[in-house]
């Protein structure tokens, strides 16, 4: 099982998407509830509309490369979600797809590079920084943890599990922050004390990844 331990296969990455879909469906109401506190009460609705569309799309088209898989996921999200999360999550997956290219497997460092490209894309698209109380807070810490773990010699499964932990820490770090991007920024200091909904869905994304690569 050496091959599996070293890389992430197309099948595993497909499982990543499927289990993110499942988690989003399960947490739809919770994500919307979080967004109702400091946003406009639709983050769960948006993400689940998008991931349902992704699942439907993947059911009919069976991408044969990792690049194709993530471009399909990204394009579907871009064209069905709208709102802030559509372009952000869409860009995230599109960039993974571009970075991965026409391969059927990615090793830890390749996946790390792809995740970094994805993070850079989201940063460019949303112009948020760490500490602005957005999904960037969870995403940055997850991507850093993943790449650090791979560089330090961890298996891809371990790296994913560390990325999950880091995403959850990044998620939790948003609670005391004042929002400076997105709708929550209208609240100013009144956004303090609430979790950022996008950071919570991002943590789910890395829970799903850890599961898929475990």
């Amino acid at each position, binding site marked *: 099982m050496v091959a599996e331990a070293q890389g992430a296969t197309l099948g595993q990455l497909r499982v990543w998407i499927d289990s993110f879909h499942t988690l989003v469906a399960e947490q739809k109401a919770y994500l919307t509830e979080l967004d109702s506190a400091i946003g406009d009460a639709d983050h769960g609705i948006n993400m689940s509309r998008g991931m349902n569309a992704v699942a439907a799309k993947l059911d009919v088209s069976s991408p044969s490369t990792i690049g194709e898989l993530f471009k399909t996921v990204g394009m579907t999200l871009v064209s069905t979600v709208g709102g802030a999360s*559509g372009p952000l999550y869409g860009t995230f997956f599109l960039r993974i797809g571009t970075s991965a290219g026409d391969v059927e497997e990615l090793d830890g460092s390749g996946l790390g590079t792809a995740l970094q490209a994805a993070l850079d894309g989201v940063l460019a698209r949303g112009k948020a920084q760490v500490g602005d109380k957005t999904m960037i807070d969870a995403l940055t810490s997850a991507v850093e943890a993943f790449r650090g773990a791979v560089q330090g010699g961890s298996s891809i499964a371990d790296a994913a599990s560390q990325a999950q932990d880091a995403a959850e820490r990044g998620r939790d770090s948003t609670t005391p922050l004042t929002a400076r991007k997105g709708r929550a920024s209208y609240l100013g200091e009144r956004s303090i004390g609430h979790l950022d909904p996008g950071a919570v869905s991002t943590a789910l994304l890395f829970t799903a990844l850890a599961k898929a690569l475990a």
Partner: protein
Amino acid sequence: MKKLINSPDDVVADALVGIAAAHPQLRVDHEHRIVYRGDTPRQNKVGLVSGGGSGHEPLHGGFVGAGMLDAACAGEVFTSPTPDQMQEATKVVDGGAGVLHIIKNYTGDVMNFEMAAEMAAEESGVTVETVVTNDDVAVQDSLYTAGRRGVGITVFVEKIAGAAAEQGMDLATVAALARRVNESGRSMGVALTSCTVPAAGKPTFELPEDEMEIGVGIHGEPGRHRVPLASASEIAQQLVEPILADLDFTGDTIVMLNGMGGSPLLELYLMYGEVKNLLDRAGVTVARSLVGNYITSLEMAGCSVTLLRADDELLTLWDAPVNTPGLRWGV
């Protein structure tokens, strides 16, 4: 939730069926959820595309027609439409003179339109200019926020840029005019009750029976402060003062007293009387006015005030003929 709907998921699609049936002069692309002027594209006319979350009707679909928009992209309720909708609209309305995107300043809208403009330039070579409206004085405009929200001035931008495009002005001129309108306008709103997003099924926020939200956003975003319910004349003050404090409006203005959707026209006229009185006293000259539901927030009770500094050029463009479901004169 008491709504005239079939299922929360179908609200926008079903409403577009009604819009198509009610307005044979418009063309509706149900797949992409776009409302078009029946005669678009018009050769050598700058195309105007707007769009945003649904739930603000008549904005934007009700402002499609001669002298105003060429296309409006309908997002889910309170959720910006997607780039492929806007890209499709951009391609369809381009008559060779380029396309102006009119966007309300919300993170989602801005990012989705940005992706659309990138895609349009890449794939079809259409030149796109963009104006982002941001007139809501309730929000602090600073590096620490997503910036001011785009609200009532969007109606004025669509009308005036629409008239300019209809008269054959080029893309740069139309875009500059649109930006000038945005920069010359300010708005402020109040909610007496919340709205309810169909997919959410319950009110967006709770507002006790004796309180109101001053500075509310058109998606029910919180405003400047929550205060005890007051009389119409006090409310008018709380809306007009921050606007006048933000920009000098001495000289001719166009004023809109806009209903949020759930307040009777009787009350909107009453509020307009109060606003007009304050403006008179502040030395603001009302050259034109609009009273009614123009940019709404579903069934929210409340209203907003928008002021636009208007010179002769803007007044002439304002008075130019317009023929849309939501705004019509001169034709």
